[in-house]
């Protein structure tokens, strides 16, 4: 494997594609690795798309196709493969797929998204493909003029229930909360209430799926009274949230939350340098296409500044035989400007065994944080990659001493 990518993005949903647009437009050699042959992630299974800013009339698949086209325009490369293993130690990281392909990259954006959560009730697995479904676009056709049950009350559940009324004769939504209370946003709630084909069962959850070969009965349990009732139906769609796709991160140092989401800060940085998380896979509250796209953009920009800072440091400080004088300064701090000027006037580089490197702490957070620089001006002396001396607020004598 000779090619090393600057930026490798795992996952081709809105977060990944947005990262790809930003990365490749900034001339990073960018690869998107997607496990499916079609880009889009969860959005590929949606239909309506009403709230992407600036795009008034579109569908979810159309929008995500234009994301892909946009990334291609700037030269993003695409490959198919499901990531199984990551080696994240060191500057060059390795990504291995289930089929054994290997890719190398200097920075990585994890944008693997999430997948539908299973309910885990009796009969759920048995009746998969026989009336129990997690994908309305896949299976709606089967239920023309029939009765379907939708379990869940978040945005997806209510949106999909509304979509299913285009096919089914009747859609019954099973809501675990008390009457009138749903997790979905008000707009979807109002549409559901206004739809003649939709009925609600409150305070309830699905306890069991029964039928002869195909789904015939949903056994519901009232969570308040404990009572069970049977509801005749032809299909059961389950939309009770999602679980993040992060199994492949178990053996890495990328820290996850208890729920399996990736912990990252507002700069999308994970606990591993050069590795970022974006979109639904990241721990956060709002999970929308536009927020995923925002995450992706941030991740790519941060990855780029990481690459610049890391490569500059490696090339100029770590890979040299000379003694390196590193001057940390900040353009908003006058004293550091003066010190910087004093250092430059010393003519350090006249000595062929010495080298001066200037680090703007405002722009180069990576190195500033790595060396715990809390004050400017600070001068570090580095030899063979190791810090040998540190002077904060150096005096003129101390500066002159740098020449010895």
């Amino acid at each position, binding site marked *: 494997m000779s090619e090393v990518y600057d930026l490798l993005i795992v996952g081709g949903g809105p977060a990944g594609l947005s990262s790809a647009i930003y990365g490749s437009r900034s001339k990073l050699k960018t690869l998107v690795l997607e496990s*499916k*042959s*079609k880009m889009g992630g969860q959005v*590929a*299974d949606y239909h309506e798309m009403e709230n992407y800013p600036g795009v008034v009339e579109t569908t979810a698949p159309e929008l995500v196709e234009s994301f892909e086209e946009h990334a291609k325009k700037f030269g993003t490369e695409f490959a198919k493969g499901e990531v199984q293993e990551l080696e994240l130690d060191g500057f060059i990281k390795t990504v291995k797929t289930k089929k054994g392909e290997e890719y190398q990259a200097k920075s990585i954006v994890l944008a693997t998204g999430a997948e539908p959560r299973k309910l885990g009730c009796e009969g759920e697995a048995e009746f*998969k*493909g*026989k*009336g*129990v*479904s*997690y*994908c309305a*676009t*896949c*299976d*709606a*056709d*089967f*239920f*023309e003029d029939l009765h379907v049950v939708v379990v869940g009350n978040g945005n997806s559940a209510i949106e999909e229930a509304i979509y299913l009324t285009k096919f089914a004769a009747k859609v019954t939504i099973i809501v675990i909360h008390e009457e009138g209370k749903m997790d979905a946003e008000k707009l979807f709630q109002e549409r559901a209430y206004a739809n003649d084909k939709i009925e609600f069962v409150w305070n309830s959850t699905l306890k069991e799926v029964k039928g002869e*070969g*195909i*789904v015939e009965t949903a056994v519901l349990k009232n969570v308040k009274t404990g009572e069970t009732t049977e509801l005749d139906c*032809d*299909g059961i769609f389950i939309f009770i949230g999602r679980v993040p796709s992060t199994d492949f991160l178990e053996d890495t140092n990328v820290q996850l939350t208890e729920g399996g989401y990736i912990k990252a800060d507002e700069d999308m940085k994970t606990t591993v340098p050069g590795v970022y998380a974006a979109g639904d896979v990241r721990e956060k509250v709002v999970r929308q296409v536009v927020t995923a796209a925002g995450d992706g953009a941030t991740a790519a920009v941060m990855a780029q500044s990481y690459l610049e800072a890391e490569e500059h440091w490696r090339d100029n400080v770590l890979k040299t035989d000379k003694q390196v004088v590193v001057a940390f300064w900040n353009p908003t701090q006058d004293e550091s400007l003066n010190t910087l000027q004093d250092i430059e006037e010393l003519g350090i580089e006249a000595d062929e065994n010495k080298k001066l490197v200037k680090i703007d702490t405002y722009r180069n957070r990576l190195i500033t944080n790595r060396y715990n620089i809390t004050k400017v001006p600070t001068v570090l002396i580095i030899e063979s990659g190791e810090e040998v001396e540190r002077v904060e607020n150096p005096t003129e004598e101390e500066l002159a001493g740098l020449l010895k």
Partner: protein
Amino acid sequence: MLELNKDNFDNEVLESDGVVVVDFWSESCDPCLELMPEVEKLAEEYGDKAKFAKLNIKGNRRLAMKQQVMGLPSIVFYVDGEKAEHLSGDDLEPADIEATLNELLG
């Protein structure tokens, strides 16, 4: 792979000897489109031992439901015209299909 419809389904599947593998799919089902090339590969590999066919549920919904298929993707295996196994779900892997096929071929 053989295209099935209501006119040839009985003859090609239910009245056929040996193992028949039917891939139920539709154009609006992304996981189906994902899986199809993999099933086609298996069809090439196992073509002399089993019959491979596909059924687009568009226009054949009743036929699919009669076979108790109400979700996609669905891969249904028949042995001497009798339904022997039904694999389904968007997490269905080609390896699962191959394993079931080998089991039924004995």
